[in-house]
């Protein structure tokens, strides 16, 4: 369960002065639901997700993850979330097993716990064949699986995906999409950001349209189409943000 309430984040920029990257953003994302943040590049998607994942601190407003406040207990919140983005990389000189185990240790898991969990994940993702080779020797699809395994080593109740399919080939992005569905089916609370309208349409139970740091609409994809009287999200998006 994620509750964002009046989240604001301002940056100081030499050229543009104070920039409001996230402006009074509020939404809720329930367990067993895929919530999409849809918007163009620079809309504030990544910043919003970083506020939820505690890697950035909000200027004002609160983010609550499973009842824990992100500002006051960031370490606890981090243990509740799994994070994956399209450009998260791997440690090329480590093996898949070493890398995933390393993150297990960062999440304070014990050695038997890590071993057991790795076995489950590697079976689920069909990774055993390349689990002990160096990461930089892997294909992009295999790399994506390592990233997935890394993000859920601690079996978090909340998953955050930041543009997870950006820059991936068809096979790799199919793997991701399948994984997102699995997360939802397992009852996790899933939030993900994308600028690809069709992807949002296909995957999301609910969509929030975000532009210039503000949320313009928040409902199911079908309702969005009905409200705007359009037959695709792209047109709906243009109508809603009014440009």
């Amino acid at each position, binding site marked *: 369960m994620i509750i964002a309430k009046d989240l604001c984040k301002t940056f100081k920029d030499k050229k543009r002065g104070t920039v409001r990257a996230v402006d009074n953003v509020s939404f809720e994302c329930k367990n067993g639901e895929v919530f999409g943040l849809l918007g163009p590049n620079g809309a504030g998607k990544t910043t919003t997700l*970083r506020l939820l*994942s*505690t*890697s*950035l*601190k909000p200027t004002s407003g609160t983010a609550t993850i499973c009842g824990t406040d992100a500002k006051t207990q960031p*370490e*606890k919140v*981090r*243990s509740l*979330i799994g*994070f994956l*983005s399209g*450009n*998260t*990389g*791997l*440690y*090329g*000189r*480590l093996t898949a097993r*070493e890398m995933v185990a*390393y*993150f297990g*240790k*960062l*999440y*304070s898991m014990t050695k038997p716990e890590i071993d057991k969990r790795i076995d489950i994940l590697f079976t689920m993702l069909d990774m055993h064949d390349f689990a002990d080779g160096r990461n930089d020797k892997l294909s992009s699809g295999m790399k994506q699986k390592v990233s997935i395994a*890394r*993000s859920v080593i601690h079996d978090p109740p909340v998953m*955050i995906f930041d543009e997870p399919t950006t820059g991936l080939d068809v096979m790799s992005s199919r793997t991701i999409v399948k994984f997102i569905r699995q997360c939802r089916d397992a009852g996790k609370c899933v939030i993900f950001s994308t600028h690809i309208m069709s992807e949002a349409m296909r995957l999301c139970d609910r969509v929030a349209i975000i532009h210039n740091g503000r949320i313009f609409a928040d409902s199911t994809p079908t309702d969005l189409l009905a409200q705007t009287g359009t037959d695709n999200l792209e047109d709906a998006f243009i109508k809603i943000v009014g440009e």
Partner: protein
Amino acid sequence: MIVRVRIVHAIFKKEMTDTLRDRRTLVFMLLVPIAAIPLLLMALSSLMTSQIAKEMERVSEVVVQGLEYLPDTLRSELIGSDDLTVVSETQYRAENPTANSDITEDLRLGGFDVLMVVPKAFDRAIEIESPTEIELFYDEAEMKSEFAVSKIKTVLDPYRERIIQARLDQRDISGDIIRPFEIVSENVASMQKVAGEKLGAMLPYLIIIMCFMGAMYPAIDLAAGEKERGTLETLLVSPATRGEFVVGKYLVILTTGITAAILSMGSLTFSLNYMLEDIVGKMNVGRMLAIEFDTSTVILILMIVLPLAGIFAAILLSVSIFARSFKEAQSYITGIYMVLILPAFVSFLPGIEMSYRMALIPIVNVSLIIKDAISGQVEWNYVITAFVSTIVLAALTLVAARKWFERESVLFRM
């Protein structure tokens, strides 16, 4: 914020594994410190040997004042020598119209190699067995001038021996009476001594630079590398704290820096004890270089290098995490390296002595202490001052690095 040992250990172990699989790091951490000093010594000695050989082969120019006063045999022996070109002063002046009125001034300027002054009626003095002398003027700063003197002596000495022998024979005295024992001595060419001193001055510089270079690549990889690979954000969303990452990564960089320093010292000890002896010959190498290199010296040097490596690690880590990419980090660190060379270089300067003020200047103090330690002049008051000030600075830089890692503008400077 708490720093959990278990987490730091996990970070250290992972980063160490990663680092040790990086060929570039291994080169700077292991290969360069081990190989640099022996190679340098080898190059130096071969340069020296070839330089000496060249000067020995050269025909030396000798100007003689009073050439006409030399006995005929000696004169013809000097002129006939393959190693020497002998001219009288008048002849020299005829060939060089611009020559100075004071002929020694010409010698000083390198116009010729040795000035030989024969007193008036030298041959007559020899004949009547009255004491006399031949003066040789030469320039000690010039190797060729020194060699010229020894070449002249190889002609003069046998000639003198023959006169002595003749005089003894005249009086029916055995030659052995004036030679109760022989003195066999070997000339220590001054080139080698100078080279030795240079080497002694080079060591502190080398150790400091090796320590920095050993830490350089891991530092770039461990921070800027995380940004470039896109792994930094995955670390930031893990429950391990920023402090734990700083400490874990810092310890890895510290370890590689120290390892490089230790290896360069080991390679140094080996080179000085074994290689140099082969090169220079049977001389007392340690005394010639004014170097004392025993266990306690090594421990002292390591003690002072350790906090210095700490400073390097903290600075390198801070710069590296600030950089957007591997390349950017590399160019910043090259800049730091340039700045670092200057204070490390102080060991080359003969005039700079240890004082309380010097003991407080970072890097300069370490350079001077290593220099003093290898020449066996440890002054504990300065060592302690330098040690404490270096440790304090190391702690401050680590705290600063820790604060630096909290800043969003640094971590997300993409």
